[in-house]
């Protein structure tokens, strides 16, 4: 199966993506096309309040699908400055548009060096399962 992996994003081993907004220390975070396909129909997201401090590698929220629940891990450390409130009414956006309207949180990063530890699209594609 072919999964979308846009070139302009950074990726984690936990199948999350991260986009650095131009000329800021803000990043947008979501789950990848592969991840939304694996988890299935998203029905609910449990996310922390704005202002919450996130630590790279630590769980910060939950994503519930019709069949399972998965944890969301912070790809970088920083302060949560917004979550996608549209998902409260339309969680299916995570499936329909994982890199667009289905974005999950926006974070002001506290240590830009952490971005260097993430994968680019080519590296992420290389570690996706073959089938």
């Amino acid at each position: 199966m072919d999964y979308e992996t846009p070139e302009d994003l950074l990726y984690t081993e936990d199948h999350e993506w991260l986009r650095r907004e131009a000329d800021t220390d803000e990043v947008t975070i979501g789950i990848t096309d592969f991840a939304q396909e694996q988890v299935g129909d998203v029905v609910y997201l449990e996310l922390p309040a704005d202002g919450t401090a996130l630590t790279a590698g630590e769980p910060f929220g939950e994503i519930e699908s019709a069949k399972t629940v998965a944890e969301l891990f912070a790809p970088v450390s920083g302060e949560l400055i917004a979550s996608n409130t549209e998902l409260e009414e339309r969680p299916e956006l995570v499936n329909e548009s994982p890199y667009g309207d289905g974005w999950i949180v926006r974070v002001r990063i506290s240590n830009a060096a952490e971005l260097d530890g993430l994968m680019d699209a080519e590296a992420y594609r290389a570690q996706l399962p073959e089938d």
Partner: protein
Amino acid sequence: MSATGPNGRSRAVLTPLTLRERHLAAGARFAPFAGWEMPLQYEGIVAEHRGVRERVGVFDVSHLARAWVEGSEAAEMLRSVTTFDVTTLPEGKAHYSLYCNETGGIEDDVFIYHLPGDRWLVIHNAANADADFERLRAVAGDAASEVTPETVMLAVQGPAAVGLLCSVLGEGFADLAPRDCAELSWQDAPLLVARTGYTGEDGGECIVPAERAESLWDALFAGGATPAGLGARDSLRLEAALPLHGNEIDAATNPYEAGLGFAVSLDDGAPFIGREALVGAKAQPRTRRLAHLAARGRGVLRAGFDVREPGGEQPVATLTSGGHSPSLRIGIGMAYLPTDLAKVGTMLEVNVRGRALPVEVVRRPFYRKPKG
């Protein structure tokens, strides 16, 4: 993100479905279930669920264990092992019944079809297939025979299901009322059909010889049925508040606390396994009752979560089933609550991994199909 999916043992030897290739072509993702390799989903659980609620879906339920009991003694034999008085069941009717143990606990729930010519077909849950067949053998001997491997069973469910079955099977199906069963034919082979199901929708369940199954599947598919997997089957039965053996009912629950008293006949006085215990259970006041819980906040209920009184520390119950209702767009679940907490309108909490989610006791079913 890391998913904690169903913990299937991929190396276990699973029985493949006769229609495996058809399921693959329809995009099935398989999961192990009671020793079978079953379609968990195709397009997606929510889309399949809506397909059934809004139009028509087809489920391959060939894993359900099917056995005949035949002959002039068959009704009495069945009466001695099941709770419902099948001797009153007219020819051409199907009825829900239970296998209980000596203490009145539910060993399995079954559907019994009474077909012409003293032929009775019993539909069992896959997980209990061996024990159930032994139970029939013990009373019926060679009059009981298993037909699971030679046949395929398809459930066609949804508001457009009856129309589809009429167009595929012809007038024979059009004559059937709810819970009627009949032997029709499909491409010169016998086809058993009952106007029954497990989704809260109208429809039918068809059993055909394995060699005629592909053409029946193709005809249903061509007629607009959406393939639906075990995921949607579970969310549909949960919305309809139908119990699942192993979750709501098991060897330690009795039919009365499960709300299944309608499947127990005591008035005829006929002996059956568990009768004495059930007479006692019926006479006693209920200490707990299966209750239906609807989330009054955002979140998904799951089997195994604790139920507490608001602000309470101690669990008062554990969810037997839970999930997201695609029709109502809320979390729903079931649990055995102490009788005083099981009243409709009671507010409780469910412990969702450390977070208290408010829930309300509601009437069953959670979802009722709109009056047509």
